[in-house]
C-alpha cells in the first residue's frame, strides 16, 4: 500500500512568487492534515480536512495560505504571495475515519522543503 506522498520534495522561490504544494493521502483515508515546521521550531498544525470539507483551519497563519481538497482525494496548499518567513518544511498526514473519543495514528508524508529567498 502506498504511503502519503508529497510533491515537490523541494521548492525554492523568490519572495512574492506563488507556490503550490500537493499531497496525496493514503487511499481511503478521509482525514488529511497539513503541518509545518519552520527552522528551529516545533511542527505546527495548519489545518484538517475531512473528505473535501475543512474541519479545522485554526492553524493557518494568514490569508496568503489557501488549502483545497477538491473531490476529497488529494490536497493542495498554495502560498501567494510567498514571504521569507514561510520557509520551512510542510508535512501532510492522513488518517482513517475518526470515531468519537478514539484517536487514530496519522501517517506522514516526507514533506516539502520550501525555501523563500
Amino acid at each position, binding site marked *: 500500500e502506498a504511503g502519503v506522498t508529497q510533491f515537490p520534495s523541494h521548492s525554492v522561490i523568490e519572495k512574492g512568487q506563488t507556490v503550490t504544494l500537493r499531497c496525496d493521502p493514503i487511499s481511503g483515508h478521509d482525514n488529511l492534515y497539513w503541518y509545518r515546521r519552520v527552522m528551529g521550531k516545533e511542527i505546527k498544525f495548519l489545518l484538517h480536512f475531512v473528505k473535501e470539507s475543512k474541519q*479545522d483551519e485554526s492553524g493557518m497563519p494568514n490569508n496568503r495560505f489557501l488549502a483545497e481538497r477538491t473531490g476529497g482525494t488529494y490536497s493542495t496548499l498554495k502560498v501567494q504571495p510567498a514571504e521569507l518567513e514561510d520557509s520551512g518544511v510542510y508535512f501532510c498526514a492522513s488518517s482513517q475515519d475518526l470515531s468519537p473519543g478514539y*484517536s487514530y495514528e*496519522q501517517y506522514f508524508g516526507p514533506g516539502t522543503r520550501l525555501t523563500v529567498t
Partner: protein
Amino acid sequence: SQELEQSPQSLIVQEGKNLTINCTSSKTLYGLYWYKQKYGEGLIFLMMLQKGGEEKSHEKITAKLDEKKQQSSLHITASQPSHAGIYLCGADIGSSGYALNFGKGTSLLVTP
C-alpha cells in the same frame, strides 16, 4: 495552547546502551504519539498511547504514559545505529482526536 517539552534535546549514546527520552505536557494528554524522523525524511509512526499507565513495546522500543496522562517516556534498550534519528512526541490538541501538537524533538546519535 498545549505545550510539549521533550528532554533531552539531543543524545549521543554508544551502541548497546539503553536510553530514555521524556515528553512532558502542560495539560492532560488525550492521546500521545511517538514518531521517529530520519534526517531529511518524513515522520514514521512508532506508538500511540491513550490510557493512563498504558505501556506499549515494539521490538526494542517501549513507551509509557503516566497515570496522570501528562508525561510519557520512550525507552530504547540495547541501542543500535539504526535507532538514530529525531524522536518526536505529539499529542492531541483536544479530545476529538485529530490535530496534533508536537515537541521540538530529541536528536539521537548512536555511535559504534
